């Protein structure tokens, strides 16, 4: 039975500044909230900083977690209000049906695979064996490429993104025929992290984009799989958690 959690973070504390600066630190703190088999469960998380003074950490975990350690180190342990909320996720999964519409938000790490990358970094000189017999994953770094990455893959995740609603043009102002209508999704945040792992001198780069928009369910089973198992790479570092909300104002 999956659970969705929401933990509020106090950005003024030393522990939270370490968390907010480093996805590896959040990964450790999130895994620390899973009691029994933290390495076997697929735990997804996302940091939402709509209000930068009040960031929220969302976590989806297969078993019921406990966030006391994050609240004690990086929250407001003595303050009023809800330090962390944990809700059963199954009611939402039961509501998924073909044609149903939701607002969604997703932080993902769009990548493309290439066997012949350009550039001369140490990483790109690795042999296929050192890369575990796969090709190089290169980040999509422009907003247009990141948006294309999302739109090309939505069908296999069980949803599609409808065209944005637009008013008809004023009379006499005909639009060019070849103009394709825009999809109802936008990138609200793009960022780049350099992550240095212990024992390595070179930093790994993580390029993320946060998408927000409207979606229409086309295949509830595929969507459920995508929601529980995450979307795209870098799932340990805050990517891949797709959350749904009621489509307000539509």
């Amino acid at each position, binding site marked *: 039975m999956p659970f969705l959690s929401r933990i509020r973070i106090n950005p003024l504390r030393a522990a939270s500044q370490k968390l907010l600066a480093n996805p590896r630190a959040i990964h450790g703190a999130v895994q620390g909230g899973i009691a029994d088999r933290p390495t076997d469960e697929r735990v997804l998380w996302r940091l939402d900083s709509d209000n930068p003074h009040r960031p929220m950490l969302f976590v989806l975990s297969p078993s019921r977690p406990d966030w006391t350690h994050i609240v004690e180190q990086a929250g407001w342990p003595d303050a009023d209000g809800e330090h962390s909320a944990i809700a059963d996720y199954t009611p939402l999964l039961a509501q998924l049906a*073909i044609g*149903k519409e939701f607002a969604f938000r997703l932080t993902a790490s769009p990548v493309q695979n290439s066997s012949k990358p350009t550039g001369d970094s140490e990483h790109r000189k690795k042999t296929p064996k050192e890369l575990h017999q796969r090709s190089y994953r290169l980040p999509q770094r422009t907003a247009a490429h990141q948006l294309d990455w999302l739109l090309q893959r939505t069908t296999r995740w069980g949803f599609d993104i409808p065209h944005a609603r637009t008013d008809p043009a004023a009379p006499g102002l005909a639009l060019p025929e070849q103009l394709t209508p825009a999809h109802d999704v936008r990138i609200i945040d793009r960022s780049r992290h350099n992550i240095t792992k212990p024992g390595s001198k070179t930093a790994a780069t993580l390029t993320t984009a946060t998408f927000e928009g409207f979606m229409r369910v086309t295949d509830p089973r595929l969507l459920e799989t995508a929601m529980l198992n995450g979307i795209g790479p870098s799932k340990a570092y805050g990517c891949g958690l797709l*959350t749904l909300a009621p489509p307000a*104002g539509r």
Partner: protein
Amino acid sequence: MTTYHPTSGGEPVLVLRLAGVLQSWGDRSAFNRRETRPEPTKSGVIGLLAAAAGLPREADLTDLLGLRLGIRVDQAGTLLRDYHTVSDYRGRPLPQTGVSAKGVQKLTSPAKDTHVTHRFYLQDAVFLAAISGPRPLIEGLADAVLRPAFPLALGRRSCVPSQPIALGGLREGTLLDVLATEPWQAGEAHRDAYWRTAKRTNTRADHVDLSATIDDDNGDDVAHDVPLSFAPRERRFTSRRIRHTWLSVPTGFPAPDDATAAPAHDPFALLGW
């Protein structure tokens, strides 16, 4: 975006409030596991109307099958699992499915004394059902719901509805318009919780987003719950095309001063039940 085809324009709409301690709307349950859909089924609502009109179980349902149905989820409720056991009061083992040469069911061997069944219910749920159809039929049904010939039930005989069922009079307009304008029917505790949450998260409380399912010939989902016959030995069902949508319904709570503030993305808004 799909567009709504006002197939019910000009026809009156009967609005029913489906609320009770327990409800159970099964569509394909059989044997030991009786599940419930998260929303009322068309067979459940037509069965309720047929009971109100005093139709026997074998009656011809042709008139009622022309009705168009829209369901709005005002309060989703929570799921209740009833762990249920069955045994023989004389203390004998239960019969198995195989029969003897005389055509009598054989007893289980090794002896099995208890059958386990699961029955699922929605508890503390409130739905709004809008039904449109030809005027004489709808007027007759509106009258019948106020003076039902048989006791009414919410999906199963044991699920007694709470008053009022009929919300007074008939509405005009399409199913979608009626569902979007009818006041929110959620209970007092649910309304208070909504108001408190809106205040805490600084979002608007004057409207609430409710999910709805309506009959639509161009809809993209299918529900297999249209009853062809309720006769005990001849129960048959067929399917209908439906469409899921969202409605923004007035709550009666005051609007905030800043009328343009858009609510932020809240993943917990859908996990209320």
